[in-house]
C-alpha cells in the first residue's frame, strides 16, 4: 500500500491531550485550530438551530445534517479506517428506516413500538452484515465492492416489490408518539422567544443520538480494536502475520458500522414521519455518502461532520446560488446548463475527484496537515 487516506490519530505520543473534553473525544482532538473553530461553529449551530433560525426548512436541514453525520461517520469506519469499499451501506440505513416505519404503522404510535422496530432492525442489520462480511470479506476488495452493490440493489428491489409490508414505491407514512408531534407543548411559555413543540423535541432527540453515536464511533476507532482495523487497512498481510484474524476484525467493523447506519435510518424515518425507497434505500444516497466521506476526509471521523454539513447545505442552498449564476449566463452556449441549479452534483463530483487525487485526507486531512506539519 502506498498511501494512507489520512494521517491517523496521534499514537500516544508526548503531547497527548488531557482534560474531560479530550476524554470525551477519546483523546482524538481536532488538532488544528481552524478545524476546531469550524467544528465548534457546526456544533453550536446544530445545538441552537431551533432558536437561531425560524421556519421549518432550516430545522429540517439541520436534522438531515445530524442524520447524515452519523451515517457518514459509520461509513467512514468501513471506508476510511478499514479500507473496505461497501456499496451496501444504504441497505442498513433502509433497514433502520423501515424498522421504525413498519413498527409504528402496525403497532401504533408509541415509544414501545418504536423500540421494538429499532431492536428488530438492529438485529436484522447485524445478522446481514455478519453474513455478508463472512461470505465476501474473504474475497478481494473489488469482488466485495461488486457483491455489495449487487446485494444492495437486490434488497432495494425486494423492498419495492413486497408492497404488503413496505408500502412498495409509495413507502410508509406513520404517526409519531404524542411527545414528538407538532401539537405537543411541553412549556406553557415560549423559551427564548420560541414556542417549543414536539417537533423541536424530535430534533433534539436526533441531535442527542447523533452526538452519542458519533462519540461512540470515535471511541471505537481510537481503541486497540480501531488500531487493528487501521493496521489491516495499511497492510492486510502484515496484520495477518502479526496474528490478527483479519476476517473477524473486518466482519466486526462491518457489523458495528451497519448498526450505526441502522440507527441513522431510524432517526431519518422519525424526522420525516415517512420511509420509502427514495429516502433511505436508493443508490443515489449511497453516492451522496461516498461524496461526503471523501470530501470531508477519509479516516478522520471529523470529516463526516464537515462532509455531511457541506453536502446537505449545498443540496439545500447551492441550488439557489447556481440559479442566479445560470440566469446571469443566459444566452451563452452550454454554460447556463452547466451551472443550472439541477447540476449542483456535477460540481461536487468534480470536487470529489480532486479530493481523491489532491487531498486524500479530504478537508480535515488538509487542515490538520497545514497546522501540524
Amino acid at each position, binding site marked *: *500500500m*502506498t*498511501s494512507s487516506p489520512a494521517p491517523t490519530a496521534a499514537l500516544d505520543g508526548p503531547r497527548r491531550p488531557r482534560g474531560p473534553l479530550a476524554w470525551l473525544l477519546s483523546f482524538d482532538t481536532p488538532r488544528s485550530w481552524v478545524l476546531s473553530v469550524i467544528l465548534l461553529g457546526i456544533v453550536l449551530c446544530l445545538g441552537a438551530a431551533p432558536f437561531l433560525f425560524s421556519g421549518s426548512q432550516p430545522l429540517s436541514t439541520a436534522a438531515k445534517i445530524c442524520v447524515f453525520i452519523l451515517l457518514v461517520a459509520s461509513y467512514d469506519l468501513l471506508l476510511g479506517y478499514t*479500507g473496505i*469499499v461497501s456499496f451496501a451501506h444504504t441497505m442498513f440505513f433502509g433497514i433502520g428506516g423501515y424498522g421504525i416505519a413498519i413498527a409504528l404503522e402496525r403497532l401504533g404510535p408509541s415509544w414501545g413500538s418504536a423500540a421494538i422496530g429499532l431492536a428488530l432492525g438492529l438485529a436484522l442489520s447485524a445478522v446481514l452484515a455478519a453474513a455478508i462480511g463472512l*461470505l465476501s470479506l*474473504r*474475497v*478481494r*476488495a*473489488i*469482488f466485495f*465492492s*461488486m*457483491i455489495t*452493490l*449487487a*446485494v444492495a*440493489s*437486490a434488497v432495494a*428491489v*425486494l423492498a419495492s*416489490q413486497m408492497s404488503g409490508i413496505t408500502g412498495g414505491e409509495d413507502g410508509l407514512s406513520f404517526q409519531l408518539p404524542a411527545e414528538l408531534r407538532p401539537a405537543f407543548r411541553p412549556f406553557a411559555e415560549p423559551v427564548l422567544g420560541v414556542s417549543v413543540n414536539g417537533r423541536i423535541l424530535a430534533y433534539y432527540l436526533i441531535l442527542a443520538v447523533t452526538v452519542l453515536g458519533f462519540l461512540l464511533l470515535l471511541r471505537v476507532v481510537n481503541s486497540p480494536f480501531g488500531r487493528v482495523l487501521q493496521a489491516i487497512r495499511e497492510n492486510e498481510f502484515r496484520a495477518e502475520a502479526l496474528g490478527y484474524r483479519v476476517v473477524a476484525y473486518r466482519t466486526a467493523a462491518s457489523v458495528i458500522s451497519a448498526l450505526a447506519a441502522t440507527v441513522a435510518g431510524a432517526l431519518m424515518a422519525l424526522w420525516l414521519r415517512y420511509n420509502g425507497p427514495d429516502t433511505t434505500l436508493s*443508490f443515489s444516497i449511497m*453516492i451522496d455518502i*461516498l*461524496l461526503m466521506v*471523501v470530501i470531508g476526509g477519509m479516516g478522520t471521523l471529523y470529516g463526516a461532520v464537515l462532509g455531511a454539513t457541506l453536502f446537505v447545505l449545498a443540496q439545500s442552498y447551492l441550488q439557489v446560488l447556481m440559479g442566479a449564476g445560470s440566469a446571469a449566463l443566459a444566452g451563452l452556449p*452550454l454554460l447556463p*446548463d*452547466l451551472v*443550472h441549479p*439541477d*447540476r449542483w*452534483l*456535477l460540481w*461536487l*463530483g*468534480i470536487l*470529489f*475527484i480532486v479530493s*481523491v*487525487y489532491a487531498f*486524500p485526507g479530504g478537508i480535515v486531512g488538509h487542515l490538520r496537515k497545514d497546522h501540524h506539519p
Partner: protein
Amino acid sequence: MSDAVEAPPADVQAAELPRARTDWLPLALVPALALLALPLVGDVSAWVTLTLAGLAMGMMIFLMASGLTLVFGLMDIINFGHGVFISLGAYATLIVLGPLAGWASAESVWLNLALLLLCIAVAMGLTAAVGAVFERVIVRPVYGSHLKQILVTMGGLIVAEQAIHAIWGASPIPIPLPETLRGAFVFGEVVMERYRVFAVGVGLLVFVAMQLLLNRTRIGLLIRAGVENPEMVEALGYRIRRLFVSVFVAGSALAGLGGVMWAFYRQTLTAGMGMEVMVLVFIVIIVGGLGSVGGCFVGSILVALVANYVGFLAPKLALVSNILVMALVLIWRPQGLFPVARR
C-alpha cells in the same frame, strides 16, 4: 498476489507444449439449464421464445461487460464508471437520429440497417474518444490502488452522468426502433422478436471477432500475455502502456456498442440507464471470473436465461434471481466460472 501458476495459459500455441484442457463443465451449464427449464415451462413455443429473449439479453449484457472484464484482466483496473460509456453510447444515437429520423421510419431494410450501423459507428467513435480522455484524466493517476480506482471512477461516473444531463436534458427521451426491426417473426406458435434475433446476431459476431482477435493475432497474443504477466511483456520490449490504453479505448467502444443495442431494446434514454445495468454487468463479471472474456460470455447468457425463465415462472423473483445465480456460482467456484490463473 499469489505467484502460483496452477495451469498453463488457456491455449498455448506452440506445438510442443501440452494444450491446456478446456474446462467444459461451465460450458455445459448453459444447455443443461435450458433443458431443465423446458419441462418447468411446459410449453415448447413459450420456451423457445423465452430462450431467445434470454440469449438476446445475454448478448447485450456481454457487449456491455466484455470491455470491463478485459480492462480488468489486462490493466488490473476496475472501472466503476464503465456505465457512463453505456449511457453515452445510448445517447449518441440521438446525434444520428436527429438529422436522419426519416431513415428509421422508412420501409427500406437497407436504409434501416444503414441507420443502425451509423448509430453504432458514431456511438463507438464517441465512447472510444471519451474513453481515451477518461483513461488519461481519471484512471491513469490511480494505477495500483484498487480503493482509489473505485472511488475515482465512481466520481467520473457522477460527473459524466451530470454532463449528459446538461447536454441532453434530464428527462427520459423516447427513441424509435427502425421499421424493419419492429414486430416479430412467427413460426406457428413460436414468436421471435426481430430485434432480439438481430441482437443475438450482433453479440455472436462480436464474440467470435473477439475470440479470433485474441487467439489468432499478434495483438491478441500480446494482450493475453499481458493479462498473464505484464512485466514480462514489457521486459520483452513491447510498449505495454500503449496496449493498455488501446484496450481501455476498445473496452469503452464495446460498452458504447452495448449502449446502442440496449437503448433500442428499451426504446427510452435516461442518463442513469448505464448505472442501472451496471449491477447486471458486475454480476456477470463475478459469475464469469474477473478478467475472463469467455467466462463473461457464458456468465451473461447464464444470468439472462435464468432471469427470463424465472421471470416467466415466478415473476416476483426475476430481479433477485441474478443474486441467486451469483451466490450459487460463488459457492461452487469462489473465483467465478473461469478463474484467471494469475490472480
